[in-house]
């Protein structure tokens, strides 16, 4: 959030160098930063994961609450035991994002709100028999919160939920593609994010199908550009799925 203090010449420098396909940290336009994944850090959570993507550091805890109906076996007014029918109840995944490590201003709150809305929509298709709470804590921020948070949350949810629920598929991941001038970049850091006018965030499952898609940013796109960006996002998300699967296999 220090990026809002960028001066105009600095912004122009970043913009011009991206047009020449050179990013300020020397990466390729469609390359992700070094990512690290750690699982099972927290002892009171059902599952937890920490992902660091460059300086962006995200800690996710997944808690599965006990079935509330299991404790409600009590005497009813008629004197018979009331057994609650819990088989038909399915709960959506509840997501909470906390950016308080960055400060408590309105910009941080807006970042947290946006991330919460995106991540809730990512897991909209997922229904669990017991309430599941996903708490995302942002420990460091250098751009691309959504991708990092989705990697951590999906990895933790895959550890927490029973295999029967997941039907042997990986949970969806986000890929955010920014459009700077005429170039597309992925995994933008904070400075690049402040120079980009439009971005598209796609949530993709492991079969390459979209579960969420949204454009953000104060810029507009043509239809053809938007289609291209979505295709790039799907490609990068599939690549992310492969990398995350390898990372998780190595950790376990």
């Amino acid at each position, binding site marked *: 959030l220090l990026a809002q203090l960028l001066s105009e010449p600095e912004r122009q420098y970043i913009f011009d160098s991206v047009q020449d396909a050179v990013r300020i940290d020397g990466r390729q336009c469609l390359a992700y930063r070094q990512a690290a994944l750690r699982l099972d850090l927290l002892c009171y959570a059902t599952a937890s994961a920490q992902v660091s993507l460059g300086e962006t550091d995200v800690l996710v805890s997944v808690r599965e609450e006990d079935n509330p109906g299991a404790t409600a076996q009590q005497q009813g007014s008629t004197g018979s035991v009331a057994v609650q029918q819990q088989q038909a109840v399915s709960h959506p995944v509840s997501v909470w994002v906390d950016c308080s490590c960055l400060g408590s201003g309105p910009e941080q709150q807006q970042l947290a709100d*946006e991330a919460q809305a995106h991540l809730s929509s990512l897991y909209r298709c997922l229904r669990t028999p017991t309430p599941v709470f996903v708490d995302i804590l942002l420990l460091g921020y250098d751009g691309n919160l959504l991708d990092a948070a989705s990697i951590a949350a999906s990895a933790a949810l895959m550890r927490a939920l029973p295999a029967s629920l997941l039907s042997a598929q990986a949970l969806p991941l986000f890929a955010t593609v920014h459009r700077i001038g005429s170039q597309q970049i992925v995994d933008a850091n904070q400075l690049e994010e402040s120079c980009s006018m439009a971005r598209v965030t796609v949530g993709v499952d492991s079969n390459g199908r*979209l579960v969420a898609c949204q454009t953000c940013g104060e810029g507009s796109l043509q239809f053809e550009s938007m289609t291209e960006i979505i295709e790039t996002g799907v490609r990068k998300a599939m690549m992310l799925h492969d990398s995350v699967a390898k990372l998780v296999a190595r950790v376990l």
Partner: protein
Amino acid sequence: RNSQLPISDHVMPLDRYRNTALVDGIDVRALPLAGDSPAPASQGKQQQQQQQHWFQRRLVQDTVGSGYVEFGDTKVLCSVHGPIEPKRSVLTDAGAEQSRAQLQVYYKLAPFASHQAGRVSYLPDETERRAASFLQDTLAPSLRLDRLPKSRIELHCLVLEDAGCCLATAVNCACLALVDAGLEMYDLVTAATVCRPVGATDWQLEVGDGSNSCGSSSVTLAYMRSLRQVAGMLVEAAEPLQPRVVSAACRICEDPCKMTHSSLRQFLLDCLPADDRTAKIA
């Protein structure tokens, strides 16, 4: 001034000022309002497939501009305040350039607005905050914020009834309110939503008749017709969708957006003679 008004005991002295509607003995209050909406959507299935938008402006008195849009049963009211003093934060105090106005959008469903969800709480929840940021990202590309440095524009959006596609209707209403406020824009931003139930193959335009079930995927597209650019796109999927299906759905949204653009533009042009009788439209 009405000499025909009988002075009776129960009429308070202030009531006299309310009777300016009595003109030549005809009680104008008894006539249908000039802004009467067309037949409500619940009147039978013989209505056209494409529902018409109903536009109205200057409904809210103490604002710079306001707009009201009805699309089927969905009703949205927007009001614009500004340009006003910018919000100061640590970053602006540090000397960051304020070369553009800040656009702040507030979006709220009225407590009685929702058909399915019952009473909506007073505090904005996650969906409403998301809708507010979507509106902000959609209207900002079209507004000439650089013409109003060091200021802030506030847009308050209130959904009076949500019978489907309220986000798209809110975009249309916000655009109308901004034009009514006299803020310069590059182009009108209009939006439409298409939805598809789980397992179906066709996308249908979502109209405000409450027929959209919760278990369907929807694609909302905000489009600027003259610039031929997409201002915003939001996909809410109830099932995983192929990317080309999503792109096709965006293309299907283009036509309703263009139609709404023409009808909004025509409405604004029709309003002009009432504003300024000497104006000529070239």
